[in-house]
């Protein structure tokens, strides 16, 4: 990778990822639970709000 990631940036990233990853895990887990109850999945959110 030619771009310098920055040592401080990598370390901060590791800390944040550890904290924030829990949120993702919870969300994914919760979606699976909801799936078991047959709830409809909301569509994926891309930055564009318009449909093409």
């Amino acid at each position, binding site marked *: 990778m030619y771009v310098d990631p920055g040592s*401080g940036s990598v*370390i901060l990233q*590791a800390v*944040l990822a550890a904290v*924030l*990853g829990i949120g*993702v895990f919870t969300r994914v887990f919760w979606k699976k639970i909801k799936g078991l109850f047959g709830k409809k999945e909301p569509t994926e959110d*891309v930055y*564009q709000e*318009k449909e093409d």
Partner: protein
Amino acid sequence: MGMQSSASFRDPSGMMFSQEGKILRQVNLVYREDFDFLFSSGLYEKLVKKKLLIRHQDVEDSPLFPEIAYKVIQPEKVPFISYPYEWSFTQLKDAALATLAIQKEALKMGMTLKDGSAYNIQFHQGAPVLIDTLSFTRYIEGTPWVAYRQFCQHFLAPLALMSKTDLRLNKLLTSYIDGVPLDLCSRLLPRSSWFNFGLLTHIHLHSRAQSHYASPESGKDTQKPRITKNGLQGLIDSLEATIRGLGIKIAAREWANYYAETNYTDESFQAKKIIVRELVQGLNPKLVLDLGANTGVFSQEVAGLGDCFVVSADIDPEAVEINYRQRKKERQKNILPLVIDLTNPSPAIGWDNRERDSFFNRGQADVVLALALIHHLAIANNVPLGAVARTMAAAGEYLVLEFVPKEDSQVKRLLRSRDDIFGDYTLSGLIGAFELYYILEKQMPVPGSQRMMLLFKRK
């Protein structure tokens, strides 16, 4: 023989070059596996379909450096190059969100972005698109996102500053070629930003982490920390939420009143639209430069004619913001709003002062529009008429110029608190100055006002 682009030289994976009038990209052998994976994973198709990545085709043209080349591709051409310091707030925000959307899609398919540069994004058909096809690499579970620092400096920092400190601060990007330094951003943001989780972590703490680990005493090389895919996704989501949460306040009512307060009756405004349409339609232009475009009302008139592309430039970032929001709403693909100060247009910057092109060097326009503009340049900014003529003639073949005389209330306002030293600022004076560079083809008064519409053709 081909010539390497002065903007494309850092990434060993390949480079852009021009050859026989075509703009091409050489893909190097070192990048072969990643490039093939971009297709075999389905990521290329997915991103192109979502209009997040520029389409390209394989071509037979000979590479610039054959010894290291894998293949040559030709990306779809972007009609006008622009840079993040010329974008309005929402343009930069959309570019940032597009980058994150691309990274999320990439991760789903086993790839990740190598860089998070705002210069990898261009506006194409009205929306931000990644033009660096070689920006992807195969994702290795456990590795950090190497683009995180660059993303924060190129996107998050200027957006936070525009939102929390001043709308004009993306201009800092002209002084800092790799994005706004995080310590500078941290210092310029208000204290309230420390209570925003995203800004606290990705800017303030990020800046401290950078300084701490940059110092020689920060200890020996520690083991590379492991970052799970979930963690990475959490990081990306956090960046996205932070950016979505950034907004700006626009004085909407003042903008609604703008055209009412100037010298037009409703009739004369409509008549002016018709005159501009007629004049431009006859010229059948491919590229129109609307200078001092304000919220793009006349750009809109012209963009519908033929297959014309309009660069809609104004000095006021609020006007450009309104312009862009309106074009998005209308799904207008042929207009590019940009923030440009004509008395100080974007300079050429970067390595060799050639990495990012100066504004007027990016392509000859077929038609230049200078509507309700000349008095701002000649009177408010003391630019001699001859100098204005010369610059406009260099910018495009035809010029549609609206002369705003001293009797007009807008000019009276400009002269209110100063001496009238503008002896040659008359219709004949202007025509005389412009005829050094142009031939006057048509002259039409704007009904209901004292203004005169002029059509010039470059000599």
